[in-house]
């Protein structure tokens, strides 16, 4: 892996040496993984989402494994923004990688309020707007499932910070391109695509849902084809960078996202399999590019249709 290829990416004002973000909620604040992974070899850690008020989170069980994936329903357990600013944020300065704050809320005002306070801190390099959390259903609509709500919340947040704003979209929609375009129009610097799919698992012995919250968010390799398509469609609708995510376990998976149009990727569930995966992906991406004589990761972004030959070899009925 001595190849000197350029894996750096630029997301808004954020310059990262590596294109690998650790997905929100899957990597704590980075500290939890520091003994097991070299954080200087990752692009950034996206923090667990924080809300205005402290939250106890959902009742247990919060995790269920499913075929090639898992359901989670954490319910945004967090100490609330006051406590967070006072006791947590200062520690993030010590991380050897960029730290991206993640903001969740149940109203436009709260999104702006929490973002403004969090983004004001120097320790926070950028803000990811989690408008797509599927595990707090009863408390309000998911903003990312509606273009108007998406536009409204992004505009409000854009008004309170100049820091890089990554808007995280939901796959639980019919037309993600429309929502991506609206987020861009409203001022997003980048998109995170996708959050988890809504799902449920039922215990057929106990006759009850396996999650305390009844429903949860599906992540892991099972959702990768859905995520790759969402990135492909969003990338065609916007010109801002996309952080692709959903079931990435290795460099081959990551390459699907880059070819589909992602400028960077995030790794979530795979961190639970093996904390060495992020570093391995970076090494293998370098080797992949070097083997093809490519100098930069940017050379492959969005090239899913650039292959030799065309995918349409003869006439068929449908596009």
């Amino acid at each position: 892996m001595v190849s000197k290829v350029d894996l750096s990416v630029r997301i808004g004002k954020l310059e990262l040496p590596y294109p690998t973000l650790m997905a929100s909620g899957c990597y704590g604040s980075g500290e939890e993984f520091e003994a097991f992974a070299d954080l200087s070899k990752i692009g950034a850690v996206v923090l667990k989402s924080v809300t205005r008020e402290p939250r106890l989170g959902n009742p247990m069980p919060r995790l269920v494994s499913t075929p090639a994936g898992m359901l989670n329903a954490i319910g945004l357990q967090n100490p609330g923004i006051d406590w967070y600013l006072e006791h947590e944020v200062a520690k993030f300065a010590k991380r050897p990688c960029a730290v991206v704050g993640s903001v969740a809320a149940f109203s436009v005002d709260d999104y702006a309020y929490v973002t403004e306070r969090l983004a004001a801190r120097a320790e926070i390099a950028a803000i990811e707007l989690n408008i797509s959390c599927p595990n707090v259903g009863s408390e309000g609509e998911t903003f990312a499932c509606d273009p108007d709500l998406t536009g409204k919340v992004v505009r409000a947040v854009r008004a309170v910070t100049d820091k890089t704003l990554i808007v995280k979209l939901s796959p639980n929609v019919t037309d993600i391109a429309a929502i991506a375009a609206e987020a861009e129009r409203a001022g997003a610097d980048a998109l995170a695509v996708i959050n988890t799919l809504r799902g449920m698992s039922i215990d057929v012995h106990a006759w009850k849902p396996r999650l305390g919250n009844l429903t949860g968010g599906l992540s892991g390799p099972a959702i990768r084809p859905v995520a790759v398509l969402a990135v492909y469609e969003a990338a065609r609708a916007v010109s801002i960078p996309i952080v692709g995510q959903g079931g990435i376990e290795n460099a081959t998976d990551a390459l699907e996202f880059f070819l589909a149009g992602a400028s960077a990727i995030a790794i979530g569930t795979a961190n639970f399999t093996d904390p060495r995966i992020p570093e391995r992906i970076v090494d293998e991406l370098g080797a992949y590019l070097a083997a093809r004589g490519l100098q930069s990761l940017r050379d492959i972004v969005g090239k899913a249709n650039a292959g030799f030959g065309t995918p349409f070899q003869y006439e068929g009925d449908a596009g």
Partner: protein
Amino acid sequence: MLPGPSVHDVVVLDRTELARGVILLGFYAPELAAVTSPGQFVMAIPPGGERAATALAIYEAQGERASLLFFVCGARTRELAELRPGDKLSLTGPLGNGFTLESARDVAIVAGGVGIASVLLPAQRLAERGARVRLFYGARNSELLVDRDRFASAGCELCCATDDGSFGHHGFITELLAQTDDKPDLILACGPSPMLRATALVAAELGVRAQLALEETFACGVGGCWGCVVPLDRASVQAPKFPKTGSGDYVHARVCKEGPVFWAHELRW
């Protein structure tokens, strides 16, 4: 100070099937063995096609060898059961906060089924320093009361119970604990959640402090996902420092990070 936890690449030294579907895997793992305290666990990184790491207690840790003892109950433990001497495995750990052995002189250890895997190390450490150790060991049947000799030779007194009466007391192991005239000054327990709850009740009745090693479904195992919580009294030193929310005076502590061992009287479950 000892080095902290890390990912250990270890090699299988020995493999014993203690009973049908109960596997003891020994490893060459000097660094892991050196830093392990009783009650800690590892996340075993899947060696083959499986996708999630498996939380397993560190059963033995002595010199250059550490071991894991597990029940084959699903895809991940089935994959681990296929390992043979010479095979490689990666273990993340040691993780979590183990038992606080304090200066206890007379300790009752309650183990149910696979819970036995968490209690050999504390039993050995206590016996070594001269404490009296009684092992209250329950399982479905006599065959599943595995590796009793090792506890006996470590100096434990054994009281056993089986669900089917095939060995020892016919019934729950906590019934034996409740009947003891001879009050211990500390109780340690690991096993299925109903057993732990019963142990907590008995301990309260006896007026003895008890530490419970909880089992939960883990994802990360290192405190990064908040998927494995248990309600814990806000006053506990183990409680994550969160402002008050909701009506109860508890917080959700991570079993993998703040635990897996908690004081019974501090749990609000």
